[in-house]
């Protein structure tokens, strides 16, 4: 199992994500944003949290134009797995891999705290370790995590069971309390909360680790 973590100059959760993948048994390669290709045998691409290019423009907008993102788009369109966390989710919406956009939090302040997430579907490689409707505690840390999608997109996400997580107590104004969504082929997950920050007993919560374990279960060569 091989995970590639994309490193933008302002990524700051790249190491955290790498540690979580490694703990679940993945081999991890860090891939620089100026690179044009991914390692050949990559099973999953992780797009980490942080402030990819400072986020002075729309979060993730410049990152989406970087050379490596062309390779990530190609990987996703070939049916490859991608996990985007926080700024990584923003990058995935900016590249068009996932629908919708992340707006400024409704109360306009940055928020870092642990929140309750409801698992809306266990039907993906990412969420197979959880039960439908299970509530897990995962930290958020963002200024722009207010998910927005138009009514048609929202209806489609719901009809196709592509809403992975919702907030139990919406902290940022997200439409439909949405915290994370899946691609149509269910192989790309974008989520604002940080599962890698609840993946070790020392974090005070380990409910994020199940996501990485579930991925490992699916991606382990037979």
């Amino acid at each position, binding site marked *: 199992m091989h995970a590639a973590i994309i490193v933008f*100059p*302002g990524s*700051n*959760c790249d*190491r*955290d994500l790498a*540690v*979580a993948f490694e703990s679940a048994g993945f081999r991890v390669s860090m891939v620089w944003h*100026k690179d044009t290709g991914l390692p050949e045998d990559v099973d999953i691409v992780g797009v980490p*949290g*942080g*402030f990819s*290019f*400072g*986020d*002075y423009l729309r979060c993730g907008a410049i990152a989406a134009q970087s050379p490596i993102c062309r390779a990530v788009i190609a990987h996703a369109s070939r049916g490859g797995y991608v996990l985007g966390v926080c700024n990584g989710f923003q990058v995935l919406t900016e590249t068009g891999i996932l629908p919708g956009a992340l707006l400024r939090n409704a109360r306009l*302040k*940055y*928020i*870092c*705290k642990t929140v309750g997430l409801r698992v809306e579907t266990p039907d993906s490689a990412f969420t197979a370790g959880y039960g439908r409707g299970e509530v897990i505690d995962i*930290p958020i*840390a963002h*200024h722009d995590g207010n998910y927005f999608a138009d009514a048609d997109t929202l209806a489609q996400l719901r009809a196709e069971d592509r809403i992975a997580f919702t907030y139990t107590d919406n902290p940022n104004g997200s439409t439909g309390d949405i915290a994370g969504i899946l691609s149509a082929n269910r192989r790309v997950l974008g989520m604002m909360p*940080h599962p*890698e*920050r609840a*993946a*070790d007993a*020392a*974090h*005070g919560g380990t409910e994020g680790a199940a996501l990485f374990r579930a991925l490992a279960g699916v991606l382990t060569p037979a």
Partner: protein
Amino acid sequence: MQEPAITPELIASHGLKPDEYQRILDIIGREPSFTELGIFSAMWNEHCSYKSSKKWLRTLPTTGPQVICGPGENAGVVDIGDNQAVVFKMESHNHPSYIEPYQGAATGVGGILRDVFTMGARPVAAMNSLSFGEISHPKTRQLVHGVVEGIGGYGNCFGVPTVGGEVRFDPAYNRNCLVNAFAAGLADADRIFYSAASGVGMPVVYLGAKTGRDGVGGATMASAEFDDSIEEKRPTVQVGDPFTEKRLMEATLELMATGAVISIQDMGAAGLTCSAVEMGDKGGLGIRLQLDDVPQREAGMSAYEMMLSESQERMLMVLRPEKEAEARAVFYKWDLDFAIVGETIAEDRFLILHGNDVKADLPLATLAGSAPEYDRPWRATAPAEPLGDVPQVDPVDGLRALISSPNYAAKQWVYEQYDTMVMADTVRAPGLGAGLIRVHGSDKLLAFTSDVTPRYVRANPEEGGKQAVAEAFRNLCAVGARPLAATDNLNFGNPEKPEIMGQFVGAIKGIGAACAALDMPIVSGNVSLYNETDGAAILPTPTIGAVGLLDHAGQIIGTQVREGHEALVIGETRGHLGQSALLAEVFNRAEGDAPPVDLDAERRNGDFIRANRDLIRACTDLSDGGLALAAFELAEGSGIGVHLGAGDIETLFGEDQARYLVACNFDQAEALMSAAARAGVVIASVGRFGGDTVRLGQSEAPLGELSALYRASFAAAIA
């Protein structure tokens, strides 16, 4: 460009006194150029030269077997075993934050982070100690919003977890807020980088962001009192770019790993001037700079502006010439400027060239070493009047008054705006007591705390100085950490006033005594004077940031109490109400003496807590608000009630020092009592945790009601 003539007005506007100007004439034997005047003013202002404080700072204990590098470099370096070191410092950004709260606070964080990674350490934890005016003052809310957002905006983007801090409100800060930022980093103990240049003819390299006109004269601004012209000073505040800082950090650490760096210094206050002079002076060398080669953000900058610019996110380095290509490649990878702007020279000269002109030609060692040093007259603070009668109040009403005050209410409105978990090593985020992080890739943990009680310092500078150190020591012991060392951020008013200087001298004496007794040397620090507006000074605020070490997670003492836990107080309770939180918040009285600090008891009781950690389920130190507030905080954090037997305000709200509240089961309590008797430690059973009410003596309220008040009051006052 026509440079202005050197007139008495120009000299005064550079913050130089007539006798100081005479000193310049004596040193160089001629009238200085405009650029030279600027350089002297930058090197000799209070902020950079410590001219009022140096004499007293020398008296602080700064050494110990754990200390790798004490004050004098960018940050202190302390050994944590296994060839690892923690590098830390605290620094103020008070004046800029009052003028422009968001950028002032943001660049304060940027400056302290740069101090840490300049030494070769990756920042792993941040804290901040904030002091604001009373809530009702028209400027306070705007300052709180701006400062908190600025700290978050910079630290969150850079990617360092904020793990602790303080926020206080007092009318004495109405027109001078305090923003003290702390950062700590981790480095290999044998790969620390220093500022002393070595070797003649070595390239001096400029790294990072381009130089603009921002911040010209900032350090001089920060060395003067405020008055009504304050708005005019906004252009002296720098603008932060945390994204560039993040890249600068990564590039600098990568560069250091290549072996290309001989010496390195960040450009902070007085930018290019201070950094170049420091590198030359410490290495016993001269420096020649060719300003045309400095990366510039705007056209037509003068030598004066370039030498005094405080543009952020810049470094100066002396490079091993054979490594130039490799070094350049690292900076280009991160899209940062890399420019050779000069060289080290054998002669003792600070030679600044711009085009074909010599803009400054000064004796470097003298420039660095000849800053005036003052033994300012000081008058000891008069002993406090004894505290008059304090009427009894209903204890739960007293508690309500504390937890509904923004001073003691829960601060989640503040710390939820900071990323407290990035790097995924945070073990205890802000909220109660010291912050804790894992040392990445090892079993060890580091504990961080920041403490001072300015009311005490005003009433009794010496005891107040001791208390700040003692409280930091206690917060570290309460989490199970071995206190290692401290940094001090000394915020005072105008040192030219003997009573202010008296506060400073007293506080230093107290800090020195406590650091020596508690084996917590001061390894770095910062002095901020002239925190006055129209003659009104802040409360004397010597903030102490301290760091402790745990060998493994098994040594952590938690904060979760359980139903049926016994509540015990370690340390002697006498009921000292002078300068207490209760007195201030309920009676609006700031009277009496500060509580005396018994350093032997502090040491004994702190050692006792750590030695008996296996018997303790939860622990917190007793400080402001005494037993009642500490017991409430422990109970509230666990969602469990507490009953304390005492009903008198002296026992409940007294602020006697050297005390801890611990929770444990009955058998553990018995064992702890026996251990305390053997160790000569005072211990008392004070009540029990359990149920869903808070009962103090005969007075009682539902925990849920008090918890809601505690959680909502800060936002209600500020948002």
